[in-house]
């Protein structure tokens, strides 16, 4: 039960630490911090992608893998399921979470909208890492219209 709180605090500290000491001042350093966060999420996503589907049988198609992300992965990390999954059937998926646990403590509405993206970088990496280990190369971006609702857009790279 305490796992969720521990993860939230750790995540908040990670963002705070990487943001206050960027490797070089100016916009370049901040982008570096975001990619470091995303990289961390990526490695964690790879490990989770190996451990979580362990008992489930092999996935048949892409949509199954996305459903696994929305249900099992989200429940394991955030103790709730993703609220909606939309697709254009051409390799783009939009996952929407109406009360994202990492944002819900901050505000409800439009306050802190500019600060929100850095709290989503780790989660984008998490999604990308899990997809990568399950065999899908993708690009994940996040957008926030109003806290705590956020959307993760997954674009599958066609090789």
């Amino acid at each position: 039960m305490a796992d969720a709180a521990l993860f939230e605090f750790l995540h908040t500290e990670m963002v705070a630490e990487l943001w206050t000491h960027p490797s070089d001042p100016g916009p370049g350093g901040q982008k570096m911090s975001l990619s470091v966060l995303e990289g961390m999420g990526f490695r964690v996503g790879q490990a989770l992608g190996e451990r979580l589907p362990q008992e489930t049988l092999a996935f048949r198609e892409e949509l199954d893998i996305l459903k696994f992300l929305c249900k099992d992965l989200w429940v394991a990390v955030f103790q709730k399921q993703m609220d909606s999954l939309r697709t254009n059937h051409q390799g783009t998926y939009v996952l929407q979470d109406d009360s994202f646990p990492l944002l819900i403590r901050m505000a409800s509405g439009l306050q802190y909208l500019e600060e929100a993206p850095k709290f989503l970088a780790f989660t984008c990496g998490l999604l990308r890492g899990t997809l990568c280990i399950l065999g899908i190369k993708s690009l994940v971006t996040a957008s926030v219209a109003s806290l705590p609702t956020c959307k993760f857009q997954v674009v599958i790279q066609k090789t």
Partner: protein
Amino acid sequence: MAVCVAVIAKENYPLYIRSIPTENELKFHYMVHTSLDVVDEKISAMGKALVDQRELYLGLLYPTEDYKVYGYVTNSKVKFVMVVDSSNTALRDNEIRSMFRKLHNSYTDVMCNPFYNPGDRIQSRAFDSMVTSMMIQVLSRAPCCRAGEALWA
């Protein structure tokens, strides 16, 4: 109870390969390499079959006169191949399944190790000792089988 255990990455290069009679290693390497074709065939056959669920355990890949080769594939397309001595007839299917499950659990632990980069060779001592425990049993079992036969005859 295995004679050779191999873990093969998605891109079909070995992450870990170990065999017990260490003098004829190359023969086992070759056997594992040829079994990859059978593994790929089974995976694609299962994909096309209209079975609702695909199993991770692939079963007996092919038997030779001295050895039997078993396969298992994970959801991340990492393959485990196990070569077992044919003379050890006491091994049943569910024993092989449980050995693969142990392998899968140990592999997952290796993946979760933050010092391990996915795609590198596996150098974890815990993984080594788990594989050793699986292989040592063949040396401890064989004399018992022979002793049993002698008593019976």
